């Protein structure tokens, strides 16, 4: 279903010839996404990886163009779905009467303020692109766990945003400063310092009056359900070690010169109770660049670049409660201090570092850790994975959630719907010196097998139910009206407030609510 000619012309007038397409091929290709087959099955549709087909795809190049597009959407009653780098089903339109706004042409690093430690970016700047530019100032940024190829703006404004380097680079929700935001009706909202009449800048996200950052994204973002974000300032952090980043050799077997003052620890804490204590202490001492509890299978995966090399590491997979810690420093003195603290903790908890003894990872592991490329290793085993649940809370709650999920997962492993990670597949990391943690349960399935897709979807549903029954903290992946209405009554009826917000900000329900919430009761 294409746009009416007159409407197409109006959009084209805004973005220019060649920057809008309503042809069958372009629109069909934008209907595809990873894990869409699961979402479809959950919604009672065929488990195919295609969403409703948008009527057109537009490529604006500026805030001004985008504002005009959104006003046209309101004028013609066409739903819009915005996307940046586009990974995941939450980039997909939920209704037929929609267009996709691909923000690819809005790709500028607007500003790097190395003194005040923030950068202002547009939607299509990737994590790698931002990182390499700020490394020139000795700085680092938070990159989402989805990998360095995705958009930090999308993560900061619209998604959840944990990352492997979270202990040292925080969480997307807490890193966002001033924002330029086009509301669903086309009005431009400037949050924080950017809204100042005189000398607008980006260095803080709130001003006098109520904070809108919570409404803008809250914990997990609105996934284009409440407008589009065109500029965002994100916090920057000191790069953890020297910025020489020398990758040598040829893909996929790259070699890397591990920077001075960088050390990896992989320890088996034996049980969750001890793991919790160790994680807390590591974080309280503020020494880690990365500190993740990964199940044995996940540890195998982050050290492998193929399923074959993963299978070589079965002994690592036997660990009961593995903790992966990287310390990094800029000076020898700082490094010695961090090493001493780690030595003290290993002694205190009677832990042994297996690195260099039982296993020595290839140097490229360190390059991937520095560039936050480790999350992509989740795809190695079956080609498809998704996190089935998630919790953001204390370490104890996260681990309780992990534990409670094991039996459920094993049930679906037995059914051969999902791959066997012993039921333990987990990634958990900490934020802000251990003040809170998050866990999610990466689960491997085969998107080419219908039985696996259906099994994965059923497992994810049951996993959500489990969270509700056991009251396992703030949920991590709660998207769409159906799920919000399932969780809401268990959590202060928050969903009714979300609906009110949606109604107030988007009176025409034009900003696709498929992965946010519908304003209707």
């Amino acid at each position, binding site marked *: 279903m294409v746009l009416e000619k007159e409407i197409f012309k109006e959009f084209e007038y805004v973005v220019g010839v060649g*920057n809008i*397409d309503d*042809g*069958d*091929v*372009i629109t*069909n*290709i*934008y209907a*595809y*996404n*990873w894990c869409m087959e699961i979402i479809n099955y959950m919604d009672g549709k065929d488990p195919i*990886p*295609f969403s409703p087909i948008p009527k057109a795809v537009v*490529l604006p190049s500026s805030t001004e163009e985008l504002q005009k597009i959104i006003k046209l959407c309101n004028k013609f009653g066409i739903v819009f779905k915005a996307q940046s*780098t*586009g*990974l995941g089903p939450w980039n997909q339109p939920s209704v037929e009467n929609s267009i996709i706004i*691909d923000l*690819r042409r809005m790709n500028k690093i607007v500003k790097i303020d190395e003194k005040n430690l923030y950068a202002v970016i547009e939607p299509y*700047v*990737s994590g*790698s*692109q*931002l990182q*390499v*530019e700020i490394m020139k100032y000795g700085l680092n940024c938070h990159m989402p766990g989805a*990998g*360095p*190829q*995705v958009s930090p703006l999308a993560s900061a404004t619209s998604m959840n945003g944990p990352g492997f380097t979270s202990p040292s680079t925080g969480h997307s929700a807490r890193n966002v400063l001033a924002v330029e935001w086009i509301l669903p009706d086309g009005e431009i909202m400037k949050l924080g310092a950017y809204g100042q009449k005189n000398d607008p800048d980006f260095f803080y996200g709130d001003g006098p009056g109520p904070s809108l950052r919570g409404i803008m994204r809250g914990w997990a973002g609105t996934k284009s359900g409440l407008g589009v974000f065109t500029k965002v300032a994100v916090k920057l952090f000191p790069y953890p070690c020297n910025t020489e980043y020398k990758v040598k050799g*040829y*893909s*996929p*077997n*790259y070699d890397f010169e591990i920077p001075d003052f960088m050390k990896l620890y992989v320890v088996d804490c034996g049980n969750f109770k001890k793991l919790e204590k160790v994680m807390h202490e590591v974080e309280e001492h503020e020494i880690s660049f990365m500190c993740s509890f990964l199940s044995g299978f996940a540890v195998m995966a982050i050290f492998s*670049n*193929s*399923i*074959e090399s993963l*299978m070589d590491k079965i002994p690592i997979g036997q660990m009961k409660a593995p903790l992966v810690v990287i310390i990094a420093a800029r000076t020898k003195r700082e490094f010695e201090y961090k090493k001493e603290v780690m030595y003290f903790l290993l002694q205190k908890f009677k832990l042994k570092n297996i690195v260099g003894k039982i296993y020595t990872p290839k140097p*490229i592991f360190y*390059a*991937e850790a520095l*560039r936050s*490329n480790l999350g*992509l290793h989740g*795809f*190695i*085993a*079956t*080609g*498809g994975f998704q996190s089935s649940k998630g919790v953001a809370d204390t370490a104890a709650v996260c681990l309780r959630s992990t534990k409670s999920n094991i039996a459920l997962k094993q049930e679906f492993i037995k059914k*051969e719907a999902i*791959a*066997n990670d012993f039921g333990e597949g987990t990634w958990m990391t900490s934020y802000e010196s251990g003040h809170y943690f998050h866990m999610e349960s990466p689960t*491997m*399935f085969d998107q*080419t*097998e219908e039985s696996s897709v259906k099994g994965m979807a059923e497992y994810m549903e049951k996993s959500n139910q489990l969270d509700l029954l056991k009251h396992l903290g703030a949920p991590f992946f709660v998207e769409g009206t159906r799920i919000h209405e399932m969780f809401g009554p268990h959590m202060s009826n928050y969903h009714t407030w979300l609906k009110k917000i949606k109604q107030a900000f988007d009176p025409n329900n034009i900003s696709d609510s498929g992965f946010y919430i519908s304003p209707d009761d």
Partner: protein
Amino acid sequence: MNEQEYKQMIKRCLRCSICKWIPQLQIKSQKYATICPSVDIFNFHAYSGGGRIIIALALEMGRLEPSQELTDIVYKCTECGGCAVSCKFLNTLEPLEIIIKLREKLVSLGYGPMPKQQQYIESIKNKNNPYYEPHEKRLEWLPNDIKIDPDAKTLYFVGCTSAYRRKEIAIATTRVLNAADYPFKILSENEFCCGSPILRTGDKNTFINQLNKNIEIIEKEEIETVVFSCAGCYDTFKVDYPLERDYKFKILHTTELFNELLDRGQLILTKEVPLTVTYHDPCHLGRDSEPYEEWDGEVLQMMPLVSINMPEKPKRCGKYGIYESPRDLLNRIPGLNFIEMERIKEYSYCCGAGGGVKSAFPEFALETAKARIEEAEDTGAEIIASACPFCSTNLNDAIVDRGSSLRMFDISELILMALTTPNKSVKESFKEVK
């Protein structure tokens, strides 16, 4: 890739967009982070490696019918293979092979090649070259004083582009070989297009005819070694011919041979060439010239949903392309200051000419080449060198269009400048090869 592998693989794209960037660990700046000329120019996701995999899936599922719109998108790709290198760092998809197969399918359905490509294929059939040039003029580049040994066991396969469009490369190559007293012959009127321009369009049957013709002639001449100055011809003989038919002769690119001649002392570079030079890796000499490795292993199911290849299936990620030979040559030229661009070797940025794009979509080819020239300019070099006449043509066009101060040379031309050639100063040599 057989039909079954194709049908399975097209279901596996993660839509992660890794295929749009150079390998993540190699990104050094925001400006030069991308790998795919097609999506860089046309922007819509369908123009990326991943996008074309989704096209293949949508076609297979019957969600899309072949159409002119679809064909246009599939053919607006230089088939440079950059997407495949980036994707395969962790994944096992084959975006480039899927694109090639997709084109073959479109040809079989009557939708490809593009009209301009069909025209040059006709030219190859009728005149043995894609430039609509008379076959009898194929040797017009050849100076009278070049020594050709009719009994030599080495053949210099000139290629259509050097024979008709970039004659300076053929001249420089033969002069260097003469300077080394290295006996070679050429096929003269029996040299025909290697078939690369046909193969890239998906017209496999016509390509196979061309391949058979070439192999038969070369084997009839009892040639032991074939030397190429054209990366496209080299890649086609080295990688694509063996997939269809075995042959007995050895394949060398001139950059490999020149290094051998220098090692053996047959060539001595004595003249200073005081130029600052950067080097453009041709896709066909670099990542795409890595041969397919035969894999005769077993697929073992380790557990439900998890299978492994035993032994591990080699990933063709461009590792075994020819990267060091051209760089070694440049570093061996006295006085020459060699500097690298950001995107090099297996993640080099394409010049924009390949995959039939230069003829079918000349503006796309030119815009891509201009981006590459800008990258070369940013190094501070005064010369951009390469080892492929087709890259050379497109990059030269971009230099002119951009008004760039860069000059383009084939490595053979730079070697010729550095040679002790009696009665010829560097300047004179320079003039000749210009």
